[in-house]
């Protein structure tokens, strides 16, 4: 087994762990955190694919690497918007819950 395979399996596990956290944690902030955990796993998957495509004197295929850089920035923008929505919800209702009743 090579190092790239090890990181590939690692990324698969991270996506699963993040998804689990997204489903079972009731607090919205923990869900946002889980969303970022999944993101880390998905980006790592891109990194593994990029590393496998190492050719032409480069350590990896630069196209997926550039996509990950774009993805990281967009993930941050989405996180910032989600956090702002959550804080506004808290400001309005004094609670931070996704439950529709009560």
């Amino acid at each position, binding site marked *: 087994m090579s190092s790239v395979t090890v990181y590939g399996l690692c990324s698969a596990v991270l996506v699963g762990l993040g998804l689990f956290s997204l489903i079972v944690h009731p607090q919205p902030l923990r869900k946002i955190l889980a969303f970022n955990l999944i993101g880390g796993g998905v980006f790592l998957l891109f990194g593994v694919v990029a590393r496998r495509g190492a050719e032409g004197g480069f350590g990896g295929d630069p196209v997926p690497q550039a*996509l990950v850089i774009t993805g990281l920035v967009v993930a941050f923008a989405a996180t910032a918007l989600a956090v702002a929505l959550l804080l506004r919800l808290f400001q309005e209702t004094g*609670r931070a819950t996704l439950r529709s009743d009560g």
Partner: protein
Amino acid sequence: MTIALAFDTGLAALVVGVAIWTITAREAFAAVVGFVAYGLLLALVWVRLAAPDVALTEAAIGSGVTGGLLLGASTRLRRTETPAAGEKPGATLRLAAALLCTLVSTGLAAILLLLPEPAPTLAPQAAANLAATGLGNPVTAVLMAYRAIDTLLETVVLLLALVGVWSLAPDHVWGGFPGPRHHADPDGVLTFIAQLLVPVGILVGIHIFWVGSVAPGGEFQGATILAAMWILAMMAGLVDAPPVSRCWLRLLLVAGPAVFLAIGLAGLAMAGAFLGYPVDYAKLLIVTIEVPVTLSIAATLAVLVAGPPERAPRR
């Protein structure tokens, strides 16, 4: 097992361990601290995968700025944690979720193990056309030349996110100052560190941006460091966050995408394609786009972290 493989296996196990800790931590604040560690460890993984550009971005944005944003939110939401603990789903749902997630992980792992050999790659094409862009760093070439449309749209996405965040302001504070005013002890550690680190950090940010054309680095990494320095100065109370109605702030935010779009449209006339560069001026045009884009991204990231207006503007 070679030493390199042993190191990589250990690092992968550590990343998974920290992820589990982040998920199981009782308090949200502790979970966010775990997430910051997770991001930094992932940055190490990116170095091991020969992607130093991504490693810099992961450490700066994925771990640093996102971590700072979430830490702030977790402190403000601390009171809501105890009631939310009563909403935990039952054992059946947890078991079903665990099964589903195991299935997803196994599927992903199977796909990764069955990827075609040799791997498809665009690296030779990227290398062949690198000279035409005048750049030395293939990742920057992808971001600014081959796939410049992605980067243009990304700067627009950042602006849209900011419009979304600002729209959450209550009516009476519209146009006012974002977030609470931070007051730190003028003789305290935070003020001292901010005064010491901010000038150095600005230089490091500009350097990382500038070397991006030939070495690992670039506008996103440099911009994030610049944004972090502004956030640090705001947190230490050295400067206040600017009111969102300020004209100079609005101009700074749109300058990058506007210049990018203008040069992109000029490409129709100069090189016969949207976002095309004439070969002789490619490097010059790319740098002309990168400077305002870096400043705009830095401003957008800092203002996103500062949040929607919360204090009424001074009349």
